[in-house]
């Protein structure tokens, strides 16, 4: 996939004029009361280009989830603005898909009904949606599980189903909040490869939040390091590794360099991670 590699290089260079699909402009957010305010985000500027994969790493409580919820239209920021393709984000929209840390499968629906829930809620043609869902489930290795109950799936399988569900609305941006945080290390590596492949195939822009520097460096075109109190962007690290990403990526010197550069922020911080 030389096109994707080229794309990654382009984003690394970030030429002016490329219209971002997702943009945060001086976004700040404060929780709590007037008397006891808690600043979660401070002056965050971030652009995500169409098809770009951006990973945010940062310690707990540095406002990553808040930033993602602002992008999802679930909360509106106190300061600044988030926009999708130039239009301000004021409420959730179909072009922006969200994958939460837990798969959030509804236990009273089987896999196919969970995955086609967006179509059902939007009143779309259910038989077409089912066919589409079956195809996507097959693509993530869940062939034959469409009639299973979520409780009978492993955590990794549930999270794949959640990704399929998010893709059902054909989003142009996929927001993922520590989607693999609850999975064991081996499943997690496998899911990383899977996600790299899905992102490369579908050309969806991804904003991924993670605790794992290695995961960020492996998947992303750009790693954004955030620091807490208040939540700020400390550094944006381009990842000059070609696509498709494979297990070999993990042993490339560029990968190690990106990891090291990101890790430096947490070491100088007294290892707050």
């Amino acid at each position: 996939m030389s096109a994707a590699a080229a794309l990654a290089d382009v984003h690394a260079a970030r030429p002016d004029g490329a219209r971002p699909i997702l943009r945060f402009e001086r976004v700040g957010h404060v929780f709590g009361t007037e008397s006891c305010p808690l600043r979660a985000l401070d002056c965050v500027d971030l652009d995500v280009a169409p098809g770009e994969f951006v990973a945010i790493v940062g310690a707990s409580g540095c406002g990553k989830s808040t930033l993602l919820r602002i992008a999802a239209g679930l909360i509106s920021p106190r300061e600044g603005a988030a926009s999708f393709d130039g239009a301000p984000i004021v409420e959730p929209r179909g072009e922006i898909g969200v994958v939460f840390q837990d798969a959030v499968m509804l236990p009273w629906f089987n896999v196919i009904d969970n995955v086609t829930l967006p179509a059902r809620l939007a009143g779309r043609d259910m038989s077409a949606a089912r066919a589409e869902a079956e195809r996507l489930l097959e693509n993530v290795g869940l062939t034959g599980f469409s009639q299973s109950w979520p409780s009978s799936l492993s955590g990794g399988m549930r999270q794949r189903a959640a990704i399929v569900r998010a893709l059902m609305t054909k989003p142009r941006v996929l927001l993922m909040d520590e989607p693999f945080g609850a999975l064991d290390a081996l499943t997690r590596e496998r899911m990383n490869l899977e996600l790299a492949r899905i992102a490369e195939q579908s050309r969806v822009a991804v904003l991924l939040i993670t605790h794992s520097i290695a995961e960020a460096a492996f998947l992303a075109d750009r790693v954004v390091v955030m620091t807490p109190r208040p939540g700020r962007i400390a550094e944006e690290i381009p990842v000059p590794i070609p696509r498709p990403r494979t297990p070999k990526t993990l042993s490339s010197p560029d990968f190690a360099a990106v990891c090291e550069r990101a890790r430096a922020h947490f070491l100088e911080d007294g290892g707050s991670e």
Partner: protein
Amino acid sequence: MTDAAVPLAVAPAARRRPASRGRVRWTNRALSAALFVGVIGAWEALVRLFDVSPLMFAAPSAVLEAFMRGVSRGLYWEHLGVTVFEVVAGFSIGASLGFLLAVAVSEFERAGRLLFPYLVAIQSLPKVAVAPFVILWLGFGVESKVLLVALITFFPVLINAMSGLAIQDPQRMDLMRVFRATRWQTFRYVRLPSAAPAIFAGLNVAAVLALTGAIVAEFVGAQRGLGVLLLQAQTNLDTAGMLVILVMLAAIGLTINVTVRAVERKVTYWVARRGDAP
């Protein structure tokens, strides 16, 4: 790691041994049958052994005899029908209204906050105590019994449904918001199923109370019903006849309970229950 893109292998379903499970079930049934026979036998033996006065208590054989006599006189069916009707009608009305009010209250949060203390206060009042009033207003007919049963079943369903609907899993709510679900869709696909176990807990309590309510209302003043029959038997010093009614009430109670639980299993099919296959 090269096989990473290959779909995860399917874990073989845990193998069950149907033969052994079946045997366990039959052993359990045999044990409960033996226990039943033992209890009845002991009851019979104790009554005979201590020569208990028939005015105080009756042996199972005497109860059965009284039952056959009653059946041959066609004594029970009308009264049984009346009591069952009161229970079923009152339960249906009370439970439906309790559920609907809970939904209304949960949709309009402020109303809920205002009402809740009163509801809890009324909930802790023993509703059978208003039976005399209900009879006063509606008379000795079936209507007063239905009203009292409805009143008694209303509150446990209301309170349980309210607390079930009040719990809103923030993640599921976020999910529904992300998919821009309407209020009705969020209720239909998330809040109602989430609350279903709590609602059934209320229905189970209400089912037990419904029969109590019907009988107490019949005690206070009625023309027909098993409660009336029970009082008549007492007036006639017919202890065996009283025990027949008690056994019938136990059977009705059990039937209601089993029915509600069966419906619960059917409706909340996703809830794992003790004793279910893993």
